[in-house]
């Protein structure tokens, strides 16, 4: 029986754990997507990332995504981790190397690869359009911005 694991976590995401969760003796394929956030946007230095979530609804929406996947594709296990909380960058290190952190990890296993490849693509597209999680970037010059996904249909059209 296929299992879903959905976790909204305030710690760094662990790719290995996602792979481990979806690994199964009956699935020859694992497809994954990792969304990365950066501490450097358009030349501005991001010193802090702040995530906010309507956690209970976000989990519900993520469960709906899992359900839709299972209606459309024959997959085995689905694992979705999303980062929340605060990421405070080390200002000294920022000047040296831009830092990247996984904000989302999606892993799906399936007997046939086509299925998990398509399911992962669908999952990240849907997540960006409907799951109530927000990300604010705080810059070294003191200003900040709430990011907006272009996939969200009530986003200011740009």
């Amino acid at each position, binding site marked *: 029986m296929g299992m879903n694991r959905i976790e909204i976590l305030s710690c760094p995401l662990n790719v290995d754990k996602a792979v481990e969760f979806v690994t199964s003796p009956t699935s020859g394929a694992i497809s994954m997507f990792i969304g990365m956030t950066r501490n450097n946007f358009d030349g501005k230095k991001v010193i802090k990332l702040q995530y906010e*979530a309507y956690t209970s609804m976000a989990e519900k929406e993520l469960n709906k995504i899992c359900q839709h996947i299972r209606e459309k594709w024959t997959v085995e296990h689905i694992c979705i981790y999303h980062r929340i909380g605060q990421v405070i960058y080390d200002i000294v290190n920022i000047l040296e190397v831009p830092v990247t952190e996984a904000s989302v990890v999606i892993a799906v296993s399936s007997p046939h690869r086509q299925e998990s490849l398509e399911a992962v693509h669908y999952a990240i597209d849907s997540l960006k359009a409907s799951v*109530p*999680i*927000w990300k604010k970037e705080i810059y070294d010059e003191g200003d900040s911005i709430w990011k907006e996904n272009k996939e969200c249909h009530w986003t200011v059209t740009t």
Partner: protein
Amino acid sequence: MDVINVTILFFAKGRELRGQREDQTAIISQPSGADLYKLVVDKFPCLEPIRDHFALALNEEYIEKSDQIITLSEGDQLAVIPPISGG
């Protein structure tokens, strides 16, 4: 028309505009979806800057901005969802 009390939640930009995460408000019990969007901005004028750029969720389900009548119950949870940025 009946009026009932609901909890209203604010997130992200909406939370900053409102200055708090949660509030109570009295609202007519059977508005259309579209009316509900208007009523929320009427009740919370602080949301004016994002009036065309939020979604509403009732008990964690999105509400469409349509003519369809929504039936609210005492204690329902309404949420103001500014443009999302997860992923």
